[in-house]
């Protein structure tokens, strides 16, 4: 098992390195410059020599390959560098915002799973019945409603109906669970419902597939109760493809929080990303992207391991 994990970890290196090369060089082609935004963006009168000095200070005068290798070298030492915008360590900038984003993503995943698994199963078991149609339409609506609009409408409704808005400052859960939840439950709902729609569809089709399997017929022939057949025989098998989707969506979600955080004004990694792009803070952008890519890669790894844990056919020998 350990060698397997080690091998898989090794396998992630080319992917991550490829992503690093891609994002690094793509970013450098983007027009705009952090120093100009910083010193000229708001109409101040800064002379060229100030700008040049700042450019030298940030190491932007060095050739690109050199900048790239020093970034990668830094990454291997777990030192991703300093934000070009605030000058603070990237680690600090990101670690302030990560707990929030991770919490929203995890809560979204939880909400999604809690909604999707029973929903998809019900839909599959009552296939082509009115219940199925209703649940399918619900999940399709969940997929269709744009997150930004959903979030917007949710905020406006809260404001309109209760004249109340979620807190604007993040409180860690362990400090004040109520304040924490009353801020984050809404974005989690918005991402969770969409996420649930994706997962429910997968659960539905995989339950339908599984219920057609021979071993379900075997279980029926054994005289087991339908409930036992569904829970014990069908669900465990049906969850395998569902886990892949839950994992994959989780990884996508981390990259997709941009819009939600924008709408809910959450000080998370997605908001930071948008700001960093707007500021052309490439050091921060590339590190956030690498972080999200790493989340993607490691979530996939985790899914595979979980798969192995559930499916006895996949075992390290």
């Amino acid at each position: 098992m350990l060698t397997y994990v080690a091998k898989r970890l090794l396998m992630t290196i080319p992917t991550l390195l490829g992503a690093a090369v891609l994002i690094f060089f793509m970013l450098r082609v983007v027009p705009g410059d952090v120093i100009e935004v910083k010193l000229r963006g708001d109409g101040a009168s800064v002379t060229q020599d100030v700008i040049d000095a700042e450019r030298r200070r940030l190491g932007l005068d060095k050739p690109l390959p050199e900048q790239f290798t020093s970034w990668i070298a830094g990454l291997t030492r777990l030192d991703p560098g300093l934000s070009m915008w605030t000058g603070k360590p990237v680690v600090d900038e990101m670690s302030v915002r990560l707990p929030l984003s991770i919490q929203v993503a995890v809560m979204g995943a939880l909400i999604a799973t809690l909604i999707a698994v029973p929903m998809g199963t019900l839909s599959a078991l009552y296939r082509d019945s009115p219940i199925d149609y209703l649940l399918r339409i619900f999940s399709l609506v969940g997929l269709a409603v744009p997150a930004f609009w959903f979030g917007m409408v949710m905020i406006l409704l809260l404001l309109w109906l209760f004249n109340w808005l979620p807190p604007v400052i993040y409180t860690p859960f362990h400090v004040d669970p109520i304040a924490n939840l009353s801020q984050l439950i809404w974005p989690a709902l918005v991402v969770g419902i969409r996420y649930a729609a994706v997962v429910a569809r997968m659960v539905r089709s995989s339950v339908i597939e599984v219920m057609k399997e021979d071993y379900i017929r075997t279980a029926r022939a054994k005289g087991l109760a339908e409930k036992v057949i569904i829970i014990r025989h069908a669900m465990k098998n049906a969850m395998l493809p569902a886990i892949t989707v839950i994992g994959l969506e989780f990884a996508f979600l981390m990259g997709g929080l941009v819009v939600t955080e924008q709408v809910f004004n959450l000080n998370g990694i997605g908001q930071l990303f948008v700001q960093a792009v707007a500021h052309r803070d490439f050091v921060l952008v590339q590190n956030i992207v690498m972080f999200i890519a790493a989340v993607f890669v490691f979530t996939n790894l985790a899914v595979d391991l979980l798969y192995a844990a559930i499916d006895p056919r996949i075992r390290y020998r």
Partner: protein
Amino acid sequence: MTKSIWASAGALALAFLTTQGAMAQDAKPVRGGILNYGVAGGPHTLDCHAGNSFAVTHHLGPHYSTLMKTDNRNYPNTIGDLAKSWTISPDHLTYTFKLHDNVKFHDGTALTSEDVRASFQRIIDPPAGVVSAWRSMYADLKSVEAPDKDTVVFKMSAPNSGMLSIFGSPWACIYSAAKLKEDPKYPEKTVMGTGPFQLVEHVSGSHWTGKRFDGYFRPGLPYLDGFKAIALSSTALINALAGGQIDAEFRGVTPADQQRIQASRGANIRFEQAEGMGLFMVSFNTKVKPYDDIRVRRALTLAVDRWGGIEPMSRISTLKYVSSFQRPGAPDALPKAQLEKLPGFGRDIKAARAEARRLLAEAGVPNLKFTLINRGPDMPYAPFALYLIDQWRQIGVTVDQQVVDTANWAQRRTSGNFSVIVDVTGDWGEDPSFVMARFLSSDTSFNNPTGFSDPKIEQLFQAQKLEFDPAKRTQAVNVLENYIVEQIFTMPVFRTVRLLPFATKVQNYPVVPVHNWLGDVSEIWLKP
């Protein structure tokens, strides 16, 4: 003597301020409370000298003092902050300031003239690695000396009629000379000044909190126990105001926002406003055909119905005034009658449009098409451009808009990668030398992106700069402004309003046009 010059100008300006704030003076200030206000953006630096945006001053302002400051009750007069008194030599080449003697830094050390000297020295001659964003503004300053503990002397290389107001720049924070000696970059990491509040906590992207500095030199101040500046996107900011989560915001909201917030908050919110410093303009790249032809530029400015458009625009955006380069209420502004004679500012839009069509035909581009570069997506760029495009459509000009983000916009603007671009100024001060500097010829002013050069502009500019008689100076400024507007390399269109929301309990904050300066937070108090 110089004081009196400004006093009269200030009185004039005050007339343009809507003065609901006046009622604040009726009640007796109460100490205590925390002020929560929103800021649409985080500071990119903790060093005032390197800062240039409201996001910097709106966070750092309460922690620092400056030598002089703008008088928010007698705008745009300049008064002392750390300076108790000052004298100016008759040749306008030496400025001598006496400092208050009870000023303490947040670390308990006393402020001396050396701190002021070291801070200004850092601005005009930054050590390696230190960014001084405003260095060029102090180009006429030759040296700074601290002859004794309470006295600072500035020597000028040339006279400058706007120098006193430059001493009031909100960016010229006074740092501790001792700490600067240890590390000239300390202000980038530590917020430590002589201001009314001490920094408690800064959570990047989230909030910034300050508490009362008990050693603040102005007796009885500040009233507040502390403040919390909350970082919010511009949309969230309005929501937070409507939800009562913040008590104030100091950059300004739109009239639509005002209605929305008012509807939610009712009697718990009030609004105060002043003419804003944001001037929305269009710049032409005069190096690119056909914009090298003044007839084309003239046609394009004539086509825009400023007077007809401003009322509806004011309902949906922060744009509220028809304005040339100087604020209509500014001491040296062009008189309205003179303004209306300038191209594009006329009242007869039909005639103007006919003239515009004729000019375009004459210039050989009757069906002009171009791409307007706009900066997005903030307020009020989008409605501004939409209005322009619609106006130009009416003289047969087809305009396609390309919205780019600030970084791209700034780059295009400085590198001349545009033919027509939405342009903006948002100065922190009112002095004509300061306001008009960016409209100097492109070879003199790196902030003029149009590539337009005309030595006459420099001549007229120098003339007003060396003029110390207020009336004569106004005249000189008017001549300059008239001339620049007529060259139409940059066409001014609309000016913003600074419309500030306050929870009803927030007292004693006179609204001035400048949003890049936070104002005096120490005097704000909360009605229990």
